[in-house]
């Protein structure tokens, strides 16, 4: 009898959405997906979240928009984007043919705009879920966003959930005193899942010119530097809410991703690493698979939330 390589079951069920595997590419770091077609097979991903979308096209912030820091990246893109109309007409038709979950990151300058985006997109096919981006630090002054207060989180999530025909993932900001409180507000308001973390409000200075290195002064910190804080928040939230948690922040390897799963995330998103290795997301899927194989784990979902706290 031939020895057959035991294959690992990587499927991930968020309840409202079944994924081929638990690895999604994170919003704003994966373009509209198509940019990555030369480098990887999009259908090998669990799915991807497209760049944050406002109703209207948006200019974004003036450059410089990026600055590297120790093990991190600060960005102040400011959600430059093409708007729902161009997205639906030019991009979505190309995404629709892909056998992978396409999630749209929904933005708004105010609650009405969020609602308008969802209303417009609800009429389009080929979207697996919305990720409500209530946490972008790069748009309003000094990082202000709905995810900073349980009240504004609750109100917005409630309104969008009621307005939309699709599952709703609410993406939280780490720039808060109690991430659990915000997560609970989103849960109470009816979100189907919680994604965290978005970037940390940060800045960098050029000593010679004494000016901020980002034209926008403030930006959002991502990458390996933030992983220990992100992992802490994912663990705190996952052990306190019933809806699935999608964890992210500094994931570079399959081992990093597995740590988030062990801490309680049902799935993960990978962001900054896509810039460094455009094929990173599929590598991470493969690394998760190998680890499971090597550790006799038949299905990756068995790992979720298995953290042992002494």
């Amino acid at each position, binding site marked *: 009898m031939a020895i057959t390589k035991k294959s690992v079951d990587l499927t991930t069920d968020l309840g409202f959405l079944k994924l081929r595997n638990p690895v999604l590419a994170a919003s*704003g*770091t*994966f*373009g509209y997906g198509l*940019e*990555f077609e*030369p*480098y990887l097979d999009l259908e090998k991903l669990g799915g991807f979240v497209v*760049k944050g979308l406002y109703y209207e096209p948006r*200019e*974004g912030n*003036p*450059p*410089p*928009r*990026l*600055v*590297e820091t*120790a*093990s*991190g*990246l600060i*960005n102040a*893109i400011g959600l*430059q984007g093409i708007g729902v109309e161009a997205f639906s007409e030019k991009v979505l038709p190309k995404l629709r043919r892909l056998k992978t979950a396409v999630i749209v990151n929904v933005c708004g300058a105010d609650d009405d705009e969020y609602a308008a985006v969802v209303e417009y997109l609800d009429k389009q096919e080929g979207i697996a879920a919305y990720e409500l981006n209530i946490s972008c630090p790069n748009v309003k002054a000094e990082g202000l966003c709905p995810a900073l207060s349980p009240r504004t989180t609750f109100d917005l999530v409630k309104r969008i959930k009621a307005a939309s025909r699709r599952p709703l993932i609410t993406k939280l900001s780490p720039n808060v005193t109690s991430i659990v409180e915000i997560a609970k507000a989103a849960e109470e308001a009816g979100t189907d899942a919680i994604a965290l973390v978005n970037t940390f409000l940060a800045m960098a200075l050029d000593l010679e010119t004494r000016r901020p290195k980002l034209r926008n002064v403030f930006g959002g910190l991502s*990458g*390996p*530097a933030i992983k220990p804080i992100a992992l802490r928040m994912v663990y705190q939230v996952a052990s306190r809410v019933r809806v699935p948690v999608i964890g992210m922040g500094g994931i*570079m390897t399959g081992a990093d991703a597995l740590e988030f799963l062990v801490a309680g995330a049902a799935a993960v998103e990978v962001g*900054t690493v*896509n*810039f*460094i*290795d*455009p*094929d990173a997301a599929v590598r991470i899927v493969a690394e998760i698979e190998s680890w499971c194989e090597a550790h006799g784990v038949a299905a990756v979902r068995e790992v979720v939330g298995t953290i042992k706290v002494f």
Partner: protein
Amino acid sequence: MTIDRNARLREIRNWDDYFHLAIDAPEIGREARPGQFVMVKVADGPSPLLRRPLSIHDAGASGIELFFKVAGLGTEILSRKKPGDPLDLIGPLGKGFTVTNGMKGKRAFCVGGGRGIAPIYFLARELGARGLQTNIFYGGRRLVDIPLRDKFEKAGIELLCSTDNGSFGFGGLVTELVGLELAKTKPDVLYACGPEAMMKVLASLAAKHRVPAEFSLESVMGCGIGACWGCVHRIKNESGDGWTKICEEGPVFPGERILWP
């Protein structure tokens, strides 16, 4: 566009802070066009985190060459690589200079300022091969800033050099030298790469003399593949003056489409 994780450093030379790398990377070498660039992984760990964009300085069947000036941590690490060391490159990326077959017999001015000479060498070779006449301008602050003089000479490419301090060639800015030549000869096209201030002056010179011109822009790049929206520059498009990703639509743009800061 490939990720070549099996590229290998064949040779490294340097003059002061300027480094020249010859790299075995056949696939990228075969595809590359002048003005395109590669994203180089300089370290395995998270420091520095991002790849670094470097113009393709020359290319052929066996691989590519790079030419860079040490600017900070990333280029410093790169400058310490040894022959035989593995390299991890993505490329060729972006759209290069416009070079078409119909240009035979025409005259091109090519201007490289400092490290901006990097893509000009490949371009000059290509233009020569296509039968254009070229005037190549190479400017630097001091003599040490124009180390590629010999290399051009060996390739049979004549140079017009300038140094700001007059230590070699024309004494003054390379833009002044180009201005003087423009007054004498009107080329059919002008290409340039270098500091933004230099290119801005060249753009207005070219406009004044009604010479179509192309410029290779620089910007901090997060990804090099159009995914991060970090590398934008103001460019005139059909749809207005937007922030345009230079890694994808550039880094080379026609002068008249560039809005200089």
